[in-house]
């Protein structure tokens, strides 16, 4: 999983995870202000920090940004078009029997705003996932008093999914080399085998791991060393400055515009 890799090798890796997450969430919240300028500003700010400061390759970043585009286009197309019995709500329309179908004026307004907001919040999500390794995200959640059972499960699932992905890959390769995926029928059959083996493997792995943990005096609670980070006042000042500038931008461009 390339996103996970970048989380560990990017240049902002050693910045306090709380600062990174707070920054991203502040930007997410600001993105909800229905103002296209603030969204564009946030997309640019986050992209430049991710690419220039964190060192995420431009090509990969663009590829990532293009991932949700299909959903976005399908969703927005659905919103743009509508039906009505009066033609004046439309920019362009056609008439079928008594109903007009067309591109609605309000739909276009919502669509543009939605497009910029989605991309702006998506960049905030990518900022977290590209710069903050998952265990550090979880340590922040721990400080925020997320129930420890939930966190334990998250921690374990995070590790196990790599083990299972590797197993699934190996099974897939071995089936593929015995021509298990040459037709729809064989593919469905092979995949069913793969999934059932994976399920049984998950079960036996859990049993064996429990034995291994028991030998290290496991008693039901998982307690591990935590990394400690220093808070950087420069970063906090930067976050505050960005937030105020963006709010000023909203006020200056006049609040609700699209």
């Amino acid at each position, binding site marked *: 999983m*390339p996103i996970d*890799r970048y989380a560990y090798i990017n240049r902002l890796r050693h910045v306090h995870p709380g600062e990174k997450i707070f920054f991203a969430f502040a930007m997410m919240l600001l993105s909800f202000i229905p103002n296209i300028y603030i969204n564009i500003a946030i997309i640019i700010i986050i992209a430049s920090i991710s690419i220039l400061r964190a060192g995420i390759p431009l090509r990969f970043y663009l590829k990532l940004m293009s991932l949700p585009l299909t959903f976005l286009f399908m969703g927005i197309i659905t919103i743009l078009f509508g039906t009505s019995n009066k033609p004046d709500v439309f920019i362009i329309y056609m008439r079928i029997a008594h109903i007009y179908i067309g591109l609605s004026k309000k739909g276009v307004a919502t669509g543009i705003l939605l497009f910029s907001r989605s991309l702006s919040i998506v960049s905030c999500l990518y900022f977290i996932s590209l710069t903050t390794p998952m265990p550090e995200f979880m340590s922040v959640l721990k400080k925020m008093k997320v129930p420890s059972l939930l966190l334990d499960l998250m921690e374990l699932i995070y590790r196990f999914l790599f083990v299972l992905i590797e*197993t699934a890959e*190996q*099974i897939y*390769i*071995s*089936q*593929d*080399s*015995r*021509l*298990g995926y*040459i037709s729809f029928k*064989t593919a469905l059959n092979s995949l069913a*085998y*793969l999934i*059932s*083996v994976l399920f*049984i493997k998950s079960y036996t792995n859990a049993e064996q791991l429990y034995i291994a943990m028991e030998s290290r005096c496991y008693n039901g609670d998982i307690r591990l060393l935590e990394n400690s980070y220093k808070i950087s006042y420069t970063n906090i000042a930067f976050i505050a400055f960005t937030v105020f500038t963006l709010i000023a931008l909203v006020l200056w461009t006049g609040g609700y515009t699209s």
Partner: protein
Amino acid sequence: MKYILQLQDVEYEYPDGTKALKGVSIAVEKGKKIAVLGANGAGKSTLFLHLNGILKPKKGKLFYNGEEVRYDRKSLIQLRKKVGIVFQNPDIQLFAASVEQEVSFGPMNLNLPIPEVKQRVEDSLKSTDTYLLKDKPTHFLSYGQKKRVSIADVLAMDPEIIIFDEPTAYLDPYHIEGIIDIFNALSIKGKTIIVSTHDVELAYSWADYIYIMKEGEIVSSGTPDKVFCDSKLLQIAKLKKPMLVEIYSLLVDRGIIKHQHPPRNMEELRKIL
């Protein structure tokens, strides 16, 4: 000379950008016993996945019987019929509930008529000495039995070339001998066998031709006695000298025997002593 399988200057990069193969060329003669040696992570498995088209080289070419493989659906199916891989961990290769079902997976995918499938399953179970396990559930088998069934899996597809990825890993000496017997029987039938291993003793005593890999490159190749005399090379590739070669050189040094050919196995040593 005509080669049955050939890789030409193959380069491969994993999606994360690490170079796994850096211009590898090999040429395999029909019916030979080939060993590919190298430390963990030298690229042996990646190399093997190229030989039946599971991975497509970023650069370079693959030839089967002198014909370039084109990587379309049809030619891939043809290739995989001819080149079978027995994977390292039988626990991952075996997935069906019973041994018979398991071995029938390949031939069934080939869409062969049922009687032919049955015949093939029977033959390959017999030749791996697992026929009596036919109706057993796979997860009841011992590790050594699983290993043999995983070989039957591939034999049932009747390939020309059979590739074994670390076939002796984690097996006890008794089961290792059983596996080598299977190799030899296949070899007599004219099959080409390619084995990856870090067991230098095995490679030395068994193979006709050896490739040594290191960090995605082939750093040496040749007959066993040639390859294993180069101490420096072995050290670079993180391998050991076979004990027989070491003892042989010691005996030559001490003047106990005369320099001729290093013995391939205990029998040969017995003869020259």
